[in-house]
């Protein structure tokens, strides 16, 4: 065990470096999207699908939604991208179940692993994709602004 202590320190320092890098990247992203409205600047990446075809993809509006979320304007999030809300809910659910099962030794069933869940989500995403490209009311409410 003593022999490997050097190796162990090296792995630990590598891990902390990686974690610090991820933390700084996340902090940078949060500060960027907190202060900058993607509608007002043009140096943020554009959706390649929208840029080339003028069609909205399922993720269009998520940068604007991030800006709205960080500014706690929840109606704005819904207006930009409804799927963002679903993604956020699923992400939170997954993290909470994982955390409870791992740290509190619970055995809650995680519906992410149910055979029907991915298919249902795929259908939701594709339906959302089609609906938000229909340029009439009420479907145009789903399009980003």
């Amino acid at each position, binding site marked *: 065990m003593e022999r490997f202590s050097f190796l162990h320190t090296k792995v630990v320092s590598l891990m902390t470096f990686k974690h610090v890098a991820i933390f700084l990247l996340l902090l940078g992203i949060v500060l960027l999207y907190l202060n900058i409205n993607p509608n007002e600047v*043009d*140096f*943020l*990446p554009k959706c390649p*699908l929208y840029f080339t075809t003028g069609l909205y*993809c*399922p*993720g269009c509006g*998520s940068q604007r939604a991030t800006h709205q979320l960080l500014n706690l304007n929840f109606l704005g999030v819904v207006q930009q*991208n409804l*799927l*963002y809300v679903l*993604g956020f809910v*699923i*992400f939170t659910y*997954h993290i909470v179940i994982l955390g409870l099962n791992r740290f509190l030794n619970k055995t809650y069933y995680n519906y*992410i*692993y*149910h*055979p*029907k*869940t*991915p*298919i249902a*989500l*795929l259908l939701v*995403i594709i339906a959302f994709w089609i609906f938000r490209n229909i340029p009439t009311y009420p479907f145009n409410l789903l399009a980003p602004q």
Partner: protein
Amino acid sequence: MEQPQPKNYLVEAILITIFCCQPFGIVGIVFSSQVNSKYAVGDYEGALQASKEAKKWTKWGFITGLVAGILFLLIYGAIFFFAYQSGEFNDF
């Protein structure tokens, strides 16, 4: 012996779909659906294989998004820099 279900990367694939790269994300979701369905009928090897595929697609989606974002910032940074150099902003 009961094998644990392989990780299906569904959440990662959905986040990839929403935040950057729909093609990668959607292929990832299809493979994560295979992980669940194959495991449910007892095909552990097939589920493991689908899990690896799902991981591959979400990973490449993430890398593509990261590289695209960085490239975009670099290109605009360069444009701004050269505009500044050539006196574009001298009026301000």
